[in-house]
């Protein structure tokens, strides 16, 4: 019986088996590396969103009239240009500031109409007192931390400001000032971070004026569009 080539067949089979094992191993380890990287980025984003909120609150304590924050005429010292357009980080992450604001205001990336802003929905059930988010602080995390930080990748961070849900003046661009208004001296800040591979985190903070500056009434997880 002719047996020429049998060894070759066996070698090919063995190599195929080993290659399959090796490929599965590479796939498993690379997937694990990717999951770990996403987990790390998500946690960095959590801290980044918290950091920009802390910065915004510090700046807010220096503004005597919070209506100027609500109508967009006063912003934090932490900005990187006009409050519009796209920003692209060094690793390719792009953030469109207009879309971020529109998503917060009416749940869609396109500019919101007045009726959409005042629509009563599950997320925004206050009609004409619905919050109208404005950019208050925005920029790269590197700019906030300063040179020499050890983050491997940067994040884009921003804070939106709006009037609180207990407002009764019917004007979401003015912080109520009459004594009977339960929303007087209270506004809401929303800190967001955008990182690599779609990482996105948000916190919301309701703050009021306290005797010694800004007082945090509530710090909570923000919903994401």
């Amino acid at each position: 019986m002719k047996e020429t080539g049998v060894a070759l067949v066996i070698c090919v089979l063995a190599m195929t088996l080993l290659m399959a094992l090796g490929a599965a191993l590479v796939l498993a380890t690379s997937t694990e590396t990717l999951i770990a990287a996403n987990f790390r980025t998500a946690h960095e984003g959590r801290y980044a969103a918290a950091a920009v909120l802390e910065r915004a609150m510090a700046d807010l304590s220096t503004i005597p009239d919070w209506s100027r924050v609500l109508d967009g005429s006063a912003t934090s010292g932490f900005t990187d240009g006009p409050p519009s357009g796209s920003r692209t980080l060094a690793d390719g992450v792009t953030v469109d500031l207009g879309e971020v604001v529109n998503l917060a205001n009416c749940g869609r990336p396109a500019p919101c109409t007045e009726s959409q802003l005042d629509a009563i929905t599950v997320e925004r059930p206050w009609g004409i007192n619905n919050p109208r988010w404005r950019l208050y602080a925005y920029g790269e995390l590197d700019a906030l931390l300063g040179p020499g930080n050890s983050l491997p990748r940067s994040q884009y961070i921003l804070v939106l400001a709006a009037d609180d849900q207990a407002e009764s003046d019917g004007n979401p661009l003015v912080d109520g000032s009459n004594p009977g208004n339960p929303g007087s001296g209270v506004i809401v800040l929303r800190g967001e971070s955008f990182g690599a591979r779609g990482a996105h985190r948000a916190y919301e903070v309701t703050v009021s004026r306290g005797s010694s500056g800004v007082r945090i009434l509530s710090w909570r997880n923000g919903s994401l569009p």
Partner: protein
Amino acid sequence: MATALMLVVTAAVFALTDPARSTALVQFESTDVQQRLRVAAEALVRDLMMAGAGAYAGAQSGSLIGWLAPVTPYRLGAVGADPPGTYRSDAITVLYVPATAAQTTLSAALAPGQLTLRVNFERGCPLNQDLCGFTSGTTLLVYDTYGNSDTFTLTSVAGNSGQLTVNSPGGVLQTSYAIGSKVVQAVQRAYYLKRHAILGFDQLVYSDGSANPEVAVADHVVGLEFEYYGDPQPPGITAVAADPVGPWTTYGPRPPTPDLTPTAYPSGENCTFTFDPIGGGHAPRLEVIGGDPSRRSLIRLSAAELADGNVWCPDPGAATRFDADLLRIRKIAVRLRIESAIDGLRGPAGALFIRGGTARDGRRFLPDREVRFQIAPPNLNAGLSP
């Protein structure tokens, strides 16, 4: 000759693939262990970060530590609750108010046997929704200014009223809540380990405080430990009682005015403050922990301090009483350890493995993975301290 050659090559192939098979098996399971560890840590971080978040619309707004203990080192809820004064290093219950429009006050009192919810329509309640937006199945927190609190599950809604069940053992409400008490949507999470009835390993589970079955978070958890760090200083007064906004204290419920006796403590006093009728001032009932009255940094709170019951809030006779030192908690340290689900990848019990397995070859060892982290919930650390 060819047969011999084939046998030699086949043997070599098996010799090569056997360790590779072990490596592959360990690697796949390692990924699974890591992922279970991440899921468990993420769940704990998410809830611990929010611990103590309070109402943010209307009266009694601000961190819950101004009213009650939002972090307890034991289980609370309708099922499996530990009694007041318990300390368990492997269980924790946190309470917080999530992002919600359902924040208002009672328009009808709640009392034992009287569990119909009626609320005021306050500014901030959602328009065009009954009962300030509270919906069936929601967890509610009701609390007053004296340190009383209970969580409920809203079982049904009919127009502007709803029916409640109490999330406490026996389902019996033992405290009365007057008109004007705060009522908000809340999240209660009790994390603990539970032995799987059939497979025999421990799962990290959480309960939402109701009679609903607990939710499994991660399997094969062999270590869960919580430690607590807190404010060594007793609470202080920050605003007069007549101040309409507050905060009135650095933490804990504000003392009543001298003409009121809302708890078992003497007139003008509560669990955190005594009252001097001659001098007319309030003084803290709690002591300095560690003996240094100038210390501002956090101090480790021992099991004895958190469970000795030296001072109970709202008073020693309350069904929902808690050790007043629980109001001091500002930071929680967590240790979480997870094992391989495959017995054949766990070696003998010891430093590497809490639960021994059947593996005896080091190439098949997949040691337990452990992570430690600390969470300082923002709502326990902001807004109340001067």
